[in-house]
């Protein structure tokens, strides 16, 4: 009878677990998992794929992203313009100007292919997510709106070696 331990019925252990968890939730000394959303926000990983931001300046309307997109949800229109030479006496350069750059977020599958294939670093992921809409049409972000997202793109984080 040395190591006699009465066997506690399993259902009592269950009750104990829930009550302990309740006390943990109520106690101010325990960390809580909750995030009270509209008032406090979770810090998202910088890599999180929330929304795509467009750097209008960098985009050359090369169409690569629109072609690789599996959902065909990037719409680009542009035309070419002659630019004055950057330094006097230099060659006149032609430059593509974006007329339209729309991403249809109602269709986008957030795969990141467009960001990845862009050869000019014009597209970025930003961990923003607050763009729910009442109307379907508003889900199509035009280039101004996409450009606004650029402000929210986080700085790169450190890496593990």
């Amino acid at each position: 009878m040395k190591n006699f331990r009465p066997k506690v019925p399993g259902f009592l252990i269950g009750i104990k677990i829930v009550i302990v968890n309740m006390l943990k939730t109520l106690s101010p000394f325990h960390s809580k998992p909750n995030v009270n959303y509209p008032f406090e926000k979770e810090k998202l990983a910088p890599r999180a794929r929330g929304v795509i931001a467009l750097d209008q300046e960098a985009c050359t309307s090369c169409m690569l992203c629109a072609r690789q997109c599996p959902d065909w949800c990037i719409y680009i229109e542009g035309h070419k313009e002659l630019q004055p030479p950057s330094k006097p006496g230099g060659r006149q350069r032609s430059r593509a100007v974006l007329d339209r750059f729309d991403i249809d977020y109602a269709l986008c599958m957030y795969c990141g292919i467009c960001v990845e294939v862009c050869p000019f670093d014009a597209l970025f992921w930003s961990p923003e997510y607050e763009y729910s809409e009442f109307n379907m049409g508003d889900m199509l972000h035009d280039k101004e709106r996409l450009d606004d997202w650029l402000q929210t793109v986080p700085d790169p984080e450190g890496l593990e070696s």
Partner: protein
Amino acid sequence: MTEVLIKVGLLAGAALTGAITFTIMDVKGASWMQRRPGPLHVGLRGFIFPVAEILKFIQKEDIIPTEVDRPVFKWAPAYVMVSCVALFAVVPLSPTLVVADLELGVFFALAISSLGTIGVLTAGWSSANKYSLMGGLRAAGQLIAYELPLILAVVGVVIQAETMSLVGIVEKQIEWGVPFVVGGQIVGFLIFMVAATAEMMRVPFDMPIGESELTMGFMTEYSGIRFLIFYISEYMNMFILCAIASTLFLGGYHVPLLPTEWVNFYGPIVLLTKTAILGFILVAIRWSQPRFREDQLQNLAWKILIPASLVNILVTAIMKVGF
């Protein structure tokens, strides 16, 4: 007559507050047990959410499907609600603060509480829905199976108290100095609580509603206000059964050592505290247990609880007569 009205008014307040308090306790308690804050934004740190619920349900459309048996379908919730409310009449908050101290108090309570079965069964049947029908049958089968242990568990108390009046029972416990649960009715108390949980159709005895099996059981077709009536009655039932259990077994409005002269003052508080504690235990059980299977449930009732309560009666009787 005015006295009657005052009492009924008080009771109305008690019934609704009790039900609402238990709703809050259940939802908030569950949230905390699940490491969540629970309703929060509705106001007052979320504690007034039942108000929003009730106001919301009042504005909901009340759908009466074409297939149903209209009169039966419409009035089934009323049976459940009325049988719950009537139970409130006999519970004494203190020796004087009792709506009706019937000589047959316990017996009345048991008789009335069996009325709800009809409401549930007809609700399930008249909905013309398979889930409802199965839920209704399960509910009825369960309610009747656990009605018996409930009745038989009370008999032990009646034997000890030699009366069926609830005030009389509490007085007897005061006379004894200890509640009956200590004075030999521990088995009876456990049986009563198990049976009461089953009567409330709460986990682990919630097959009639069995969300993951029968969607909402016998309430599947009910919407809007009629659903609310079922919903409130569930909590009222929980409140009142806990109150009856604390009266019968835990000494009611009195705790040992407190002076009996003051019982009219502290009585209600004591009773409500006991009720709340029992309610909290039920909440903890609800959120930690899986549910039984229908046959296991019936086996528990017929093979364990009923024989056990019969034995309990006989033992109590022998003690009573023999000593």
